[in-house]
C-alpha cells in the first residue's frame, strides 16, 4: 500500500494464477464439444454450481468496496449486502428450474423458445453484451486500481494480465474451466473471510457488541454509523427503495448468472445449487459486516487516514493489522493473501462474463451477421438423426466462433479499460449492469415464461426500452449529469422508473402485435414451453463422459 512492488504479494498471486491455469488446461479436453464448451457438458454438481454462482456474484467490489463503505457509512453500507442475498429468492422461486428445462446455451434461447424470432436474439444479445461490458469494465478497472495499490503492480499491467487470463480461461477450457476457476475463488475467499472474521472477533473476546462499542468510539461519524441515513438520509426514501430494488431484482436478469443453470444435469440440481450460493454469499456478507465495523474498532482513530478517501483499502489495511502490522512477516503474508484473493475474485467474475458474452455473440449474433438459417434441422425431408447431426454440427461451429469471440472480447475490454483509465467511477458501471438486467431482461423473461399473449414484438420493445431508458435515465443522475445546476434526478439508480417502463413496453408491444402474431402454432409453442418448464420433458440432456 506504499506503491512499491510487493514481491510476496506477486508470488502469491502467481501461485493462484498457476493453479487456475492448471485446472483450465486440464478442462480443455472436456470442452471440445459445443455442450462441453458452452455448458460444461451439463455435468456440474449442485455444490460446484452453487460455489461457481457465488464466485461469479461476489466481486472484488463486495470484498473491498463494501467493507470500505461500511467503514465510512456504517449500517447503510450493508444495504447492498442484504439486498444481494434476497435477490436470489426471485431466481429460486421463478427462474432457476424453468431456465434449466427450457434453455440451451444463452438467455436468448429461453426468450425465442416460443417464437424463434431472430430479431429477439439480436436485441437480447445486444443488451447481454452491454451488461457484460459494464461489468467487465468495472472489474478490470478494479483489478488495475486495487492491485496497483495493494501489490505495486502498475495499473496497465494488472489490467492486461487479468484481461488476458479471462481470455485464456474461456478460449482453452470454456465453461468447465470457468466454473472450476470460480469454485477455487469461492473456496479461497470463504476460508480467508472466516479467518479474518474470527481474527476481528478474537480482538474483542468474540463479542460482536464489543466490536460495535469500540467501533462507535473510533468511527469517523461516531454513533451515527449504527443509524440508517448516512448514505440515503439526504436523498430520501425513494432513492433507498430504488437502489435496493436494483440489486434485489437485477440478479434475476443477469445473463452470466442465469446461464449457469444450463450447466447442471437437471432442474433439481439447479435448485440445490442456489442453496449453496445463498449459504456461501450469506456467510461471506455477514463477515464483511463484521470486517467493516471491525476496521473502525481495530484501526482506531487513524483508520480513515490509512484506508484512504475511497475506503477500498479498508480490508487490506485491516488484515495487515490483524497479521501483526505493516512491515511484519505476518502482516505481509496477510496482505499478500488479500491481494491474491482480490485478483482471483476479479478473474473469476470476468471469465464468467466473457463466456456469457462470447456465447451470445456466437450463438445469437453471428448467425444473423452471416445470414445463416435459424435452424439447420428445418428441412422437412430431413430425418430425426440427420437433423440432430446438423444441429450438433452447427453448435460445434458456434463453439469455435465463441472461442475466437472470447479472445476478441478480452482484447476489446483491455483496450476500453485502458482508455477510460483508473479514475472511472466503477460503482456506476455495476449499477448500470444491474439496472439493465432488472429493466430489460427480467420483465421479458418472466412474461415469456408465464404469459400466453407475450410475443416477439413485446420482447423487442421491452428489452430495448429497458436498455435505452436505463442509459438515458442515468445521464440525468448526479454521477453522470453534464448540464448546469443540480442533476434533475436525485435517485442514484432509477430502476424504479426504468423497470415499469420495460414492463409496460413488453405488455404494450405484445398487445399491439397480438392479432398478427398470435396463431395456433404460437399457442402450441407456449404449451410446449410450459410442459417442458414444469416437467423437464424434452429438456437438454447432460453429456455422457
Amino acid at each position: 500500500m506504499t506503491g512499491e512492488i510487493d514481491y510476496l504479494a506477486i508470488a502469491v498471486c502467481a501461485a493462484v494464477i498457476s493453479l487456475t491455469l492448471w485446472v483450465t488446461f486440464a478442462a480443455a479436453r472436456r470442452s471440445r464439444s459445443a455442450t462441453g464448451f458452452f455448458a460444461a457438458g451439463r455435468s456440474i454438481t449442485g455444490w460446484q454450481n452453487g460455489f461457481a454462482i457465488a464466485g461469479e456474484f461476489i466481486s472484488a467490489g463486495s470484498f473491498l468496496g463494501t467493507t470500505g463503505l461500511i467503514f465510512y457509512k456504517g449500517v447503510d453500507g450493508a444495504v447492498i449486502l442484504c439486498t444481494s442475498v434476497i435477490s436470489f429468492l426471485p431466481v429460486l422461486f421463478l427462474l432457476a428450474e424453468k431456465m434449466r428445462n427450457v434453455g440451451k446455451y444463452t438467455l436468448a434461447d429461453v426468450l425465442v423458445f416460443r417464437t424463434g424470432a431472430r430479431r429477439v436474439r439480436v436485441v437480447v444479445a445486444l443488451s447481454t453484451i452491454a451488461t457484460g461490458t459494464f461489468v467487465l469494465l468495472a472489474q478490470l478497472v478494479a483489478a488495475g486500481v486495487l492491485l496497483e495499490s495493494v501489490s505495486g503492480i502498475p495499473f496497465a499491467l494488472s489490467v492486461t494480465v487479468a484481461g488476458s487470463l479471462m481470455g485464456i480461461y474461456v478460449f482453452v477450457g470454456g465453461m468447465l474451466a470457468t466454473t472450476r476457476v470460480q469454485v477455487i475463488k469461492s473456496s479461497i475467499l470463504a476460508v480467508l473471510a472466516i479467518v479474518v472474521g474470527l481474527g476481528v472477533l478474537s480482538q474483542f473476546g468474540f463479542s460482536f457488541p464489543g466490536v460495535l462499542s469500540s467501533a462507535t468510539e473510533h468511527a469517523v461519524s461516531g454513533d451515527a454509523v449504527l443509524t440508517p441515513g448516512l448514505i440515503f438520509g439526504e436523498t430520501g426514501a425513494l432513492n433507498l427503495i430504488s437502489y435496493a430494488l436494483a440489486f434485489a431484482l437485477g440478479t434475476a436478469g443477469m445473463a452470466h448468472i442465469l446461464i449457469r443453470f444450463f450447466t447442471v444435469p437437471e432442474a433439481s440440481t439447479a435448485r440445490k445449487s442456489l442453496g449453496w450460493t445463498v449459504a456461501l454469499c450469506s456467510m461471506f456478507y455477514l463477515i464483511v459486516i463484521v470486517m467493516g465495523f471491525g476496521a473502525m474498532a481495530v484501526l482506531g482513530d487513524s483508520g480513515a487516514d490509512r484506508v484512504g478517501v475511497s475506503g477500498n483499502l479498508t480490508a487490506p489495511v485491516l488484515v495487515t493489522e490483524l497479521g501483526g502490522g505493516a512491515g511484519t512477516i505476518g502482516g505481509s503474508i496477510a496482505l499478500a493473501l488479500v491481494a491474491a484473493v482480490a485478483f482471483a475474485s476479479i478473474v473469476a467474475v470476468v471469465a464468467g462474463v466473457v463466456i456469457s458474452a462470447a456465447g451470445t455473440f456466437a450463438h445469437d449474433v453471428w448467425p444473423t451477421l452471416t445470414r445463416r438459417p435459424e435452424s439447420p434441422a428445418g428441412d422437412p425431408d430431413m430425418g430425426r438423426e440427420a437433423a440432430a447431426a446438423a444441429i450438433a454440427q452447427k453448435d460445434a461451429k458456434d463453439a469455435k466462433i465463441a472461442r475466437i469471440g472470447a479472445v476478441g472480447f478480452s482484447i476489446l475490454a483491455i483496450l476500453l479499460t485502458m482508455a477510460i483509465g483508473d479514475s472511472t467511477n466503477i460503482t456506476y458501471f455495476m449499477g448500470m449492469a444491474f439496472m439493465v438486467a432488472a429493466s430489460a431482461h427480467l420483465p421479458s423473461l418472466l412474461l415469456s415464461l408465464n404469459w400466453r399473449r407475450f410475443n416477439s414484438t413485446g420482447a423487442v420493445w421491452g428489452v430495448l426500452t429497458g436498455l435505452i431508458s436505463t442509459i438515458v435515465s442515468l445521464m440525468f443522475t448526479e454521477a453522470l449529469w453534464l448540464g448546469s445546476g443540480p442533476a434533475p434526478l436525485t435517485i442514484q439508480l432509477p430502476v424504479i422508473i426504468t423497470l415499469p417502463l420495460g414492463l409496460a413496453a413488453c405488455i404494450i408491444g405484445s398487445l399491439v402485435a397480438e392479432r398478427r402474431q398470435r396463431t395456433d402454432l404460437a399457442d402450441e409453442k407456449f404449451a410446449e414451453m410450459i410442459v417442458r418448464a414444469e416437467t423437464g420433458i424434452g429438456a437438454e440432456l447432460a453429456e455422457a463422459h
Partner: protein
Amino acid sequence: MTDHTDAAATKWSQILTVPEFVELRRRRRRVTTTLGVIAIALFASFLVGFAFFPDVLGDNSVFGIPLSLWVVFSQFAGTWVLVYAYFRLSRSYIQPAVDAAVAAIEQRDQERVA
C-alpha cells in the same frame, strides 16, 4: 410438415388439460405465490424501517446490537428460512406432482401410439 405440425398442435395443448399436470401447476403456483408474498413482506419491512424509522432503529438495542443491524440480519435469516421452506416444499409437495404428471403424460403418449 403439415402432418407433424398438426400432430404437435394436438399434443402439447392437450397436455395442459391433463389433471395431473393441472395439479402440478396449481401446487407450484401456490408455493411460489405464498413464499413470494412473504419475501415481499420481508423486503418491504426492511425498506420501511430504513426509510421511515432510522432513529428508532439506531437508538434502540437488543443484546447490545442496534435494531438497524437486527433488521439487516433479519433479511439474511428470512432468506434462509424461505430457501429452506422452498426446498422442503419442492421435495415433499411439488416433486410428487411432477412425477405424477410425467407418468400421466407418458401413459397418454403410449396409449396414443397403441
